[in-house]
């Protein structure tokens, strides 16, 4: 009571605890908490960025039409805009009207010009998919959104932008107005359209006319007339296509289903291969081997294996699994097909085996730890009941260690699902027409090459001919890959918690 009074009098300025900051509470809490917060922020930033970029990709954007100062017309979707500093020579080489517009903008915006990347499509007519349009080129009309500008997604040649001016059945023109043509189009489009029967006649921005065969059209919509509901519909439909369809146009359009499938099958196959091997190795090391310098050496080697770059495993997988093992299988069972390799080249089984090897140390280390954590008293109890060593391991030690083994499997799965480099050598390909699992005997085809989301991302980002169109797909594909890893891990963690509940409980 007395001290409280004193404290009030002196306005709480004196407190013996305030002498040292370290003496008060737990200052390290702040440091450790700071570390955690930094980590969390980075994860949130990463996931948030991916999520943002990935989720806007499929949102239908309007079609713009720009009549430039030199009189040409650009029609398409604006992909992005940016500021740039032009070379003086390029500005000087422009026409008179443009120079003055550019100079005006340059002086207004301190030496910078703004430009937009417009997806103009119509590749077969213009020879380009995208075009940069600088703001100063905009004519007096600026950006227009023509009501009847349509977007067509096609099975080949990329997108097409145009205004409908007619509809043809068997080459006969049926109507001419945009509205009627669009109406007829909607009546005749749908599933299983016979090729070269129906066509829609379009007028492009460059003033040309083009007939599009309905059989080649995947999706079409009047981008500037969409209400929110239609937009959401198109958005969801694009996601559905993305998740369930095969890729089109060198992977830059269409879906990634084969890649999802390949990733899941390869990862599960790898897990099925690595867990038994890892558990067996760990059992021998921990339960049977005499603990000494030799076992220590083996342990150190296994730990070092975890640090070997993954591409090295890829090289080994190609050399050993594909060429030696696969080659021998071919020489024995598939002689008639030689010199075409069956097993003697990259395949999903070799990819799974290679990644199993890569993740083996993870499983061994986790299992060994789990085995070491099984109390001696439990083993002794089992031995005292007259159990043999193997009975003790199989009935008491392993069940008790199972959650720990599962942790190892989860870590291995997470590591394996994200690997790309070794896969490029042992079977992941840009485009695999046949899934490794189908309804043809023997249903599972371990020798087939496969698509993988990780490799797909690499392919989209760095190998695509139409890289501007592929770029947004990088984000959506990454999102899907992350989602799949999350799903696989959640399933495994759920499994583990079920096991843990079964095999443990409160002690007292």
């Amino acid at each position, binding site marked *: 009571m007395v001290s409280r009074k004193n404290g009030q009098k002196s306005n709480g300025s004196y407190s013996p605890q305030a002498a040292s900051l370290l003496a008060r509470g737990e200052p390290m809490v702040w440091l450790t908490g700071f570390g955690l917060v930094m980590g969390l922020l980075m994860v949130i930033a990463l996931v948030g960025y991916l999520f943002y970029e990935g989720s806007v990709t499929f949102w239908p954007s309007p079609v713009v039409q720009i009549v430039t100062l030199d009189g040409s017309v650009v029609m398409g979707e604006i992909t992005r805009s940016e500021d740039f500093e032009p070379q003086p020579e390029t500005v000087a080489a422009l026409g008179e009207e443009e120079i003055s517009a550019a100079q005006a903008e340059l002086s207004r915006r301190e030496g910078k010009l703004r430009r937009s990347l417009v997806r103009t499509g119509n590749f077969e007519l213009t020879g380009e998919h995208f075009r940069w349009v600088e703001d100063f080129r905009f004519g007096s009309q600026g950006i227009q959104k023509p009501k009847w500008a349509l977007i067509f997604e096609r099975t080949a040649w990329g997108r097409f932008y145009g205004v409908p001016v007619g509809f043809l059945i068997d080459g006969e023109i049926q109507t001419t107005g945009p509205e009627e043509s669009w109406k007829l189009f909607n009546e005749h489009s749908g599933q299983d359209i016979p090729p070269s029967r129906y066509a829609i006649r379009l007028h492009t921005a460059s003033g040309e006319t083009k007939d599009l065969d309905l059989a080649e059209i995947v999706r079409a919509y009047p981008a500037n007339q969409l209400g929110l509901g239609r937009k959401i519909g198109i958005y969801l439909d694009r996601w559905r296509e993305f998740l369930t369809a095969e890729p089109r146009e060198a992977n830059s359009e269409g879906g990634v289903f084969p890649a999802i499938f390949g990733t899941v099958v390869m990862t599960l196959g790898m897990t099925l291969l690595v867990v038994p091997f890892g558990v067996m190795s760990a059992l021998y090391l921990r339960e049977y081997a005499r603990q000494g310098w030799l076992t220590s050496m083996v342990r150190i080697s296994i730990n070092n294996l975890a640090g070997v770059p993954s591409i090295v495993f890829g090289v080994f997988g190609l050399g050993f699994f594909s060429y030696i093992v696969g080659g021998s299988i071919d020489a024995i069972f598939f002689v008639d097909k030689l010199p075409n390799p069956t097993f003697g080249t990259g395949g999903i089984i070799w990819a799974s085996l290679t990644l199993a090897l890569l993740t083996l140390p993870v499983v061994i280390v986790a299992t060994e730890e789990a085995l070491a954590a099984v109390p001696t*008293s439990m083993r002794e*109890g089992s031995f*005292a*009941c*007259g159990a043999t060593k193997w009975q003790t391991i199989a009935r008491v030690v392993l069940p008790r260690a199972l959650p720990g083994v599962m942790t190892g499997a989860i870590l291995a799965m997470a590591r394996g699902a994200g690997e790309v480099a070794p896969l490029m050598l042992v079977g992941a390909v840009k485009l695999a027409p046949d899934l490794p699992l189908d309804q043809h005997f023997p249903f599972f085809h371990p020798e087939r090459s496969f698509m993988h989301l990780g490799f797909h991302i690499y392919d989209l980002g760095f190998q695509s001919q139409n890289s501007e169109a592929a770029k947004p797909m990088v984000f959506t594909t990454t999102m899907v890959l992350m989602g799949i890893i999350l799903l696989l891990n959640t399933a495994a963690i759920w499994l583990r918690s079920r096991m843990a509940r*079964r095999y443990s*409980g409160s002690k007292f």
Partner: protein
Amino acid sequence: MPTIESRTAGDRLTRIARGEVVSTTIHPELAHEEAVLDVQGFNLWYGETQAIFDVSMSIPQGKVTALIGPSGCGKSTLLRSVNRMNDLIETVSISGDMKLGPDSIYGKSVDVIELRRRMGMVFQKSNPFPMSIRENVVYALKINGERNRAVLDEVCEKALRGAALWDEVKDRLDESGLSMSGGQQQRLCIARAIAAEPEVLLMDEPCSALDPIATSRVEELILRLRGDYTVLMVTHNMQQASRVSDFTAFMYLGQVVEYGPTARLFTNPLLKETEDYITGRFG
């Protein structure tokens, strides 16, 4: 406070402490008992250190025998030697032999697994297996190849009744054995040890982790087991030894000093040293 009495009494223990091997004082009553387990000149070393010195004693059939003595005197070691649990420790070496009935325990051609199946063991710390209560109890039978569900169920109930646990767990036999209280777990371990009807039941301080109520239940249990089973138990608790055991052996630094009927040993021991230990004047 060393009195003249206790100094003379300490003589035998001092000789043991000096490293001499002193012969065991065995009460004549034991000669009338039928022995089921016979320890014959048994020595045991942990590496270079000897932990058991020339122990010879026979454990009577159908009786409860208690091992008492100060901490570290080798009670657990001796007990674990009976079912060769010490084989699991690499540094252990032994000499001498024990006999279970007519069969040698440490003979060359002994099947250790078979031997352990003839004995049950309860540990100081309860150690139920990570499986259901039912599976825990019938573990010994199952690993022995018993598959008949009816037999297993019957054995399970009998063993759980024997361990005074049946009423508490009969409705949750499929729950994990690890989900029970500490005292229940210990009784589960006892049920597990008696399920296979062993010839000898070895108990190493079975009550040391239990509260008084659970302790008294386990003691009642041991009293009920007497007659059907031969029990060899280690205890630190003099009262417990006097309550439940028929015979008691007093051990000191790896040697059995005096061995006889519990009543005699606790009221009228042959040796002054034993009396001092029991009355708490030493140890």
